[in-house]
């Protein structure tokens, strides 16, 4: 039962927040796909997980919109990887999405009375 609920939450939240999550993660420094998926899983304590099948189409879509830019980087002693970084356009989108998200969460909290929780 619990498993099913968490799966539902997972899908709904992902739908609304996936773009925001990815843009946030590449805000400070460029990261590659696997790193992004690991960070999401770790920082959400395992609640949110992006599998390869959904992560990459999303990354490519962001890239197409010009919000992130990927490029191949080969660091010494490492394999060639594709790193994504936030573009100036992406920065604006991220700021806007953060505001929207904050307002949304505040609204939910006020209604559900969870601000003191």
């Amino acid at each position, binding site marked *: 039962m619990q498993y099913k609920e968490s799966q539902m939450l997972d899908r709904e939240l992902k739908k609304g927040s996936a773009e925001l999550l990815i843009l946030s993660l590449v805000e400070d420094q460029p990261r590659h796909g696997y790193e992004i998926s690991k960070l999401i899983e770790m920082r959400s304590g395992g609640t949110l997980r992006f*599998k*390869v*099948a*959904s992560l*990459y*189409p999303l990354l*490519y879509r962001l890239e197409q919109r010009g919000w992130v830019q990927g490029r191949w980087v080969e660091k010494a002693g490492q*394999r060639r990887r594709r790193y994504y970084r936030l573009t100036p356009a992406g920065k604006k989108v991220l700021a806007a999405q953060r505001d929207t998200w904050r307002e949304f969460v505040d609204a939910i909290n006020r209604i559900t009375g969870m601000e003191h929780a």
Partner: protein
Amino acid sequence: MPDWKQEVRLRLAVLKIDPAREQEIVEELAEHLEDRYTELLSAGASPEYARRAISDELSDGDLLIQGLRRTERRVATEPVILGSSRSRNMTTGLLQDIRYGARTLKKSPGFAAAVVLMLALGIGANTAIFSVVYAVLLRPLPFAEPDRLIFLAEKDLEGELIGIAYPNYEEFRERAGSFAEMAAFLGQSFNLTGLEKPVRLQGRKVSWNFLRLLGVAPQLGRDFVEQDDRPGAVPTALISDGLWNERFGGRSDVLGEPVRIDGQQYTIIGVLPPMFEFIRRGDIFVPLGPSLTEASGLLNRGNHFALFGLARLKEGVSVEQASEEMKTLAAQLEQQYPVTNKGVTATAQELKDFLVEDIRPALVVLLGAVGFVLLIACVNVANLLLVRATRRQKEIALRMALGASRGRIVRQLLSESLLISLLGGGAGLLVGHWAMQGLLSLATPNIPRLDQVGLDTTTLIFTLSVSVLTGLLFGLLPALQSLRTDLQATLKEGGRFAGGAVRERTRKVLLVAEVALALVLLIGAGLMLRTVFQLTHVDMGFKTENLLSMRFILSGDAYNPERRRAFSSECLAQLEATPGVESAALTLSLPLFQGSGWQSVFITGDKSVPESKDLPSAAFTPVSSNYFDVMGIRLLAGRMFNEADTATSTPVVVVNQTLARRLWPGEDPVGKRLKQGFAEDKTPWREVMGVVSDVRQNGIDRDPPMQVYIPLQQEPMRSLIVVARTAGDPLAMASMIEERIHSIDKDLPVFNVRTMDQLLDESIAQQQLAMALLGSFALLALMLAAMGIYGVMSYAVTQRTHEIGVRMAMGAQPSDVLRLVVGQGLTLALIGVAVGISAALAMTRLMASMLFGVSSTDPLTFISISLLLIAVAALACYVPARRAARVDPMVALRYE
């Protein structure tokens, strides 16, 4: 470790995205999966479990593919290697091929221009000639159900078409079961007077149902009805749209208006629709019935005026059946009326066939000629493509090595050929348009329906189909040839020698064919040239310089024989008194113009009368007494006519040399007697007074007929031609002579004002046109053939530079090399000439009817044209041969 890249690639295959992009995604995702795999293993999972888990994650249902489908555009890229396209869509494939072809052509603009130009000339000439052939021969006549319209005529003993005797026509109409309806029409010209200036107009007397049978109704007024078409009926007339507009200002109240036609009052009852034309232009149509009187001669079964039948076939009856029936009926009439109908048969043919039968052979020959030009152009283009294919051999071998199928390669090469031929066709339309303008300005007006020639849909479809066919024709051989490539050899040797022998043989065969085709055309043109030369150098039997002629017709009852005699004398007196006129005479018919004469059988006084069908026939020509002097016809025996030969003196004739020789060989004809018509006819016996030299009475290209001249005073004709020998330019005298005639009768229309030189030009115009056209086609063919020989030889020389270098290093002199190359080219040309001569022997027979004074297998033409072609071929070989002879052996040996 599993091959993650392969895992990803398999899943992406359905997306068909750009290969480079696909590679990128494969790499990135494989990295990710590898990290994940390591992670799972280090967490303690078994490799088998980890592999399966990751495989599931990778697909996650259909999430990956659906997600990527949204972001990655599916590109219908040209495959990197032509021939490995996975596309099953025929159209995309074709477009792709054409795009590729366009790019290859762009890379060699010189080649493209040469090929398109050659094709444009070939296709253009075909377009022009086809548009004429279509308008004249193929397009249906503008009448209701035109293929059921039948032209009826009778034939004389010699099988020549003659008019139907009216009584015979009536029998045919009553008895023939093949036709739903039958009408008669009689060619006639009319004097229209009472307007500002009297005019002579062409028209017809027709039976009342004539227009109805054609399915034509007047645009204004009414058609004839049966009551109009009877002896004694009130005279009625229909006029053409042209006459209505020119002479009556297109007024709608013209109906009911009285007009004077041949001195008689007629009422206009209707106006024919615009563009209405039956066989030739006609401006006045009147019913035949009122003319059916004893005096007209129409009711005499022995008279064959220009009266013909028009009939509509019954449903289900063929033209052949109808013709058979007409023959049977004519045979019955022959039994029934042996005196008049002996040897007369009847014929039925489709109206259109009758219209075009004179011009058809010429058009068919011309169509064949332009077809040859196009074939030669095709051969040239095929040769150029073969050379190109040799250069592209490596490319093709590479494509095949990379897996392109043979079909795919052929398709690609053919698409390229089609592209070329369509470009050629487009340019050909332009060339055709110009050629047609030129042709129409040259053409004689007596070719039926020529005014309807134009670039219409049918012509466009023709040009398009010819272009496509041409493309297939010249493209197929090189395309198939390119498949015979030995892949390994080609790739190894850089394509220099591989497959060369076969291809070279093909080129040589094509060259031979080209020379043969050109020779056939040249011989055709040569024969036409000789024909025109012969026609312009025929001894006509009279002097043509400074001779003016014009016609008038003394119609109406007012001009009785007495008045006609008086008019002739007065007219001649007036003309002789005109300054600038050296002498003038009157005649019923001019030499050279068959049909204007009066052909009749006759009997002679000193021989037993043969059966009527074996009676001799001669051209009877009433002339004024000074006619022979004016024309320059020489007296050979006896005397010419003089003032003493009058209506009341002894009836006399002068005969021509041909008649004298044929009827009285070795005897003196002077004093013999002859009588025009049959033994029982009441014509007078006439005494032969003299013999004169022959003139070509029936046409330049016909031998002089037997001819009998009668004094005009003894046979006063209504239809007369003035011939005047002038001191200066005859045409400048025309209006003055016309004035003199009008001073005698102001209502007399004078027409057909022409100089004899004009008439001569007109009478050979058709042959001259044929010569000009065949000549230009032949010249084009010669040029193309020379280009072809030059192309093949110079290519052969470049291919053999190495060999020539070796020869020269071994001591061969430049002259040896020259001989070698020219000899090789000439051998091919000679084979071509041999083939061409045998083809020409078979083909020129088709043009026999167009020739005059030269046989269709004239040895002189055949030999001189062959020599000309060989000379041109030698020249075309000489240029590359000289280049070969100047080869520096050292350079040649280093060559490649």
